[in-house]
């Protein structure tokens, strides 16, 4: 599963004088969830539209499944599913009718259509509403219907633009779970989002966008190591004297912050749970809780751009 399915090199898009996407390069492999993260207007959607051949590339190259989307858009669009930001359907038609329209456009043979549509609706948890008009659907249901369209299409790449925005927490985690299932089927998934923390858990790798450029790219851990100097966050809850000092002395710990009464947040270069536990016990403290996690992308993002601004680097303009 190491095949590159999307490869962008020095991709640039200008609208008149404004540069929406500025010289970005990235690759996505099969069976990977790749996050395009960053604030609104950072160039994520434009990048997606260029991958689908829906907008022209100003300069640079992009290759999707071995095809150039500008020259062979049909080949690309046949195997790529796209869930646009706030996806729309024909409200006066039922869910099944909406999907059979796209199924016909895709070119799925008529006799297979109904079966595939029902299976897809089942997969996304909408088995009972197939014959209801989409006008009555909630936002979460529309997102699921959009995902059902991608499932029905049986694609190699799924591109989801802001799939979680406007969804409640339950709907969000359901949707992210469905995305994980897609990944396990070998589909390369690309998620764009401005809600960094919500999607960070599903992404294998992320690209942090800012002002049309990719500021950082890699796994969350790599980014954390690069920006914060530590790829692990260890939360310790323990009673004891001078624990902060003791924890700071543990090898590999970069920083210790108090995070409430008797709680400490450690940034470390490795999983230092056992060392931290030993330090607490050796200091005569009582360990209550110990957890390890990757640092949040929000923290990485903020720190990175804060640092950039202080350095006056061109990225932070």
């Amino acid at each position, binding site marked *: 599963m190491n095949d590159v399915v999307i490869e962008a090199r020095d991709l640039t898009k200008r609208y008149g004088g404004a540069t929406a996407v500025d010289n970005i390069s990235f690759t996505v492999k099969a069976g990977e969830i790749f996050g395009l993260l960053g604030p609104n207007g950072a160039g994520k959607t434009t990048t997606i539209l260029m991958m689908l051949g829906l907008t022209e590339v100003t300069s640079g190259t992009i290759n999707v499944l071995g095809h150039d989307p500008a020259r062979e858009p049909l080949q690309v669009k*046949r195997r790529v599913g796209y869930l646009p930001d706030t996806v729309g359907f024909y409200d006066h038609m039922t869910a099944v009718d909406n999907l059979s329209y796209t199924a016909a456009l895709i070119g799925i043979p008529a006799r297979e259509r109904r079966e595939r549509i029902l299976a897809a609706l089942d997969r996304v948890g909408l088995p009972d509403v197939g014959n209801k008009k989409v006008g009555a659907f909630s936002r979460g249901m529309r997102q699921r219907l959009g995902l059902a369209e991608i499932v029905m299409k049986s694609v190699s790449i799924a591109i989801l633009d802001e799939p979680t925005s406007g969804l409640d927490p339950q709907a969000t985690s359901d949707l992210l779970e469905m995305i994980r299932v897609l990944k396990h089927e070998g589909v390369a998934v690309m998620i764009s989002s401005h809600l960094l923390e919500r999607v960070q858990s599903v992404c294998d790798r992320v690209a942090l966008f800012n002002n049309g450029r990719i500021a950082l790219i890699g796994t969350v851990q790599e980014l954390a190591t690069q920006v914060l100097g530590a790829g692990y966050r260890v939360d310790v809850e323990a009673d004891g004297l001078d624990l902060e000092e003791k924890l700071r002395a543990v090898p590999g710990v970069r920083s210790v912050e108090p995070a409430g009464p008797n709680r400490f947040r450690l940034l470390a270069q490795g999983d230092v749970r056992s060392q931290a536990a030993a330090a607490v016990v050796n200091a005569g403290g009582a360990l209550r809780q110990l957890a390890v996690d990757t640092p949040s992308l929000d923290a990485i993002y903020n720190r990175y751009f804060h640092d950039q601004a202080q350095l006056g680097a061109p990225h932070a303009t």
Partner: protein
Amino acid sequence: MQREGSPWRGMNVVFFRELFDHLTSVRMLVLEFLVLLFGATVVYFAAEQIRNTTAEDPFLFMRLFAPPGQTLLSFVLVLSILVPIMAIGLGFDSINGEYNRRTMSRILAQPIYRDALLAGKFLAGLGTLTVALVTLWLLVIGFGLLRLGVPPSGEEIGRLIVFLIVTIAYAGVWLALAMLFSVLFRSTATAALVGLGLWLFLALLWPALAQVLGEAISPSDIRFTMLGLPTPDTLAWQQALARLSPGTLYGEAVVAMLNPDAQSMTTLLAQFQGRIAAPLPLDQSLLQAWPQIVSLIAGMILLYVAGYVVFQRQEVRA
């Protein structure tokens, strides 16, 4: 840059879905009802008039569509006014509606070209209008058969078929225009208003304005005015300007087809030369209406192409 694959891929899917949508929509029902109501009224009066006054007329059926001497209460006039409304009603939200429903990017992410979407939508609109117009046409003929009790002659049927085709082309012009506006304006209300505004302008103001403008560009010669004749240059300008309106073209083509004994320039000439003005045969009438028919079809294609070019270059994101 050569594109791979056929631009028509998926067009029939779009066509049939749009056609189904149009034919089942309340909007279409209302428009059909409107035309039927107006049409029935004027055709009824025309039939009554024919029964009372016309003893013997070789073109009885034509009178049903365009009663002689009647300009206000004719089926042709009702069509020339209502067909644009029908076409604008079908086309004003065809492209911008997809953007507003946020379905555009989802549909264009499927393996089709934009060509297929636009062409499918246009042909579906034209198909809907054709169905509606053919239905009306048959209804009027059927009514005529019942009420007048005379079957139309072969020549009359030929003339009526050409009339039907011209009417469909006229509808196509307005449909292409409405679709152009639906591409140009992101708001459906704006597109509808601009379309209807232009229609009102062309139907009510333009004929008078064309006269004034023609006079301004090439003033009348006093020598012709003294004789009570129009100055040829002025008349040419006025006609050319008036013909910018599809309504004028349609009117001229229809008069040529449905009024074989209409006073055209050639019949006037015949009178001067002492010949007897006889009704023109079908092929001569067709020849007379040919420039107008071609202009209508060319206008339709031109407006469609304008919409096509703008649509192809449009950014997908809302």
